[in-house]
């Protein structure tokens, strides 16, 4: 059995989760601080992957990063970066696709903290950033872990978006979910079953881990 699709999937999910921790946390914090029409629009845009067919997202990413025109052409010419049919392209698509799984739970956890916590910190002379770093963030740890695990698990389960922008290149873009589809296409059901079982087992363990960490309380994936 070729295990490279499994490794590629884990690598993709790991990198996506790390990137989303770096991008998603400050982003959730920014959305949490005050309301404006602009923020509502931005939040709606990053929430779209939850409801949009993944193939639609993949299709637009494919168009946007096609080396023939627009941003894709510019990236190719200036930096020699190609997002279409490459691993970096998968990472980019995954970050966009899983963004609501990181930003949503973190933002709603921040909203549920009593506002007096931040106020107390401000009266001690602390900036908004110090307050976020030392008071708010440490007190939403369970939600943070839930968000990270769900982001990871959600990336494992990607199919449409990955297929559209990455295709099915062995060792480069053929992740486990695509290997399942590919095996079925070749009528190799044993192989499809192998990949499926592994994906099932990993995802199941992750979800169990979240529930155990949250003291057996089944929490909604979205917060």
């Amino acid at each position: 059995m070729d295990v490279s699709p499994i490794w590629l999937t884990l690598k993709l999910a790991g990198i996506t989760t790390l990137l989303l921790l770096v991008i998603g946390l400050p982003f959730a914090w920014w959305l949490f601080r005050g309301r404006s029409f602009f923020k509502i629009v931005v939040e709606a845009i990053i929430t779209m992957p939850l409801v949009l067919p993944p193939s639609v997202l993949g299709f637009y990413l494919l168009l946007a990063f096609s080396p023939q025109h627009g941003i894709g052409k510019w990236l190719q010419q200036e930096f020699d970066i190609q997002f279409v049919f490459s691993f970096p392209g998968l990472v980019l698509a995954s970050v966009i696709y899983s963004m609501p799984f990181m930003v949503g739970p973190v933002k709603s956890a921040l909203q549920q903290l009593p506002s007096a916590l931040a106020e107390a910190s401000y009266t001690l002379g602390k900036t908004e950033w110090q307050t976020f770093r030392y008071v708010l963030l440490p007190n939403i740890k369970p939600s943070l872990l839930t968000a990270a695990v769900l982001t990871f698990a959600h990336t494992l389960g990607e199919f449409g978006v990955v297929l559209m922008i990455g295709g099915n290149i062995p060792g480069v873009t053929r992740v486990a979910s695509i290997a399942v589809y590919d095996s079925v296409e070749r009528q190799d059901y044993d192989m499809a079953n192998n990949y499926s079982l592994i994906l099932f087992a990993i995802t199941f363990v992750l979800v169990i881990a979240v529930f155990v960490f949250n003291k057996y309380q089944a929490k909604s994936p979205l917060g």
Partner: protein
Amino acid sequence: MITIAIEKKLNAYHGQQLLQVNRQFESGSITKIYGPSGVGKTTFLKVVAGLLMPEKGSIVVDSVTWFNADAKINLPAQKRNTGFVFQQYALFPNMTVRQHLEYATDDELWIKRLLLLGKLDALEQCKPEYLSGGQQQRLAILRALATKPKLLLMDEPFSALDYKMKTELIAELQALFKELDTTTFIVSHYPHELDGLTDEVLSFE
């Protein structure tokens, strides 16, 4: 000298009310803020701390303008150096007793003194969830004092303390306020709770 002349709309459940305060407070004085629930006592403290903005008026503390609606001056809460004791304590669940004070100040001697004052020295490694209601309240008071504030705003600060603890703590705080030359506002529900401690009364009807 602290001069406060403000107007702030309050959204009470039986309609809108207006909070109006127009008064001067001597530096170093202790003022009791007294009145029924929902008249804006907590709102008043938050306005002074810079956590809420009034619609009109000005706040001037020792000749420094903290707030002036007409001149659009609003000194942020971080720059006002007030100490705030929240009614619900607002302790940080992730920090131990000692970490609460270390978050506010680097002055190790001062931290030790505060821990002794609040009788929390034996519990300095405990997080708030392991403290009793009275201990939590004392920690909230110590944290507010940690930055040596010139203006201390206390919202029902003694409600969870028994009589003996309250009397002892008040006596120690009185001496400390003198030493720090702190001006203090204390919100209280009870007419005689702070007799002997406060110099002035600000009554909200």
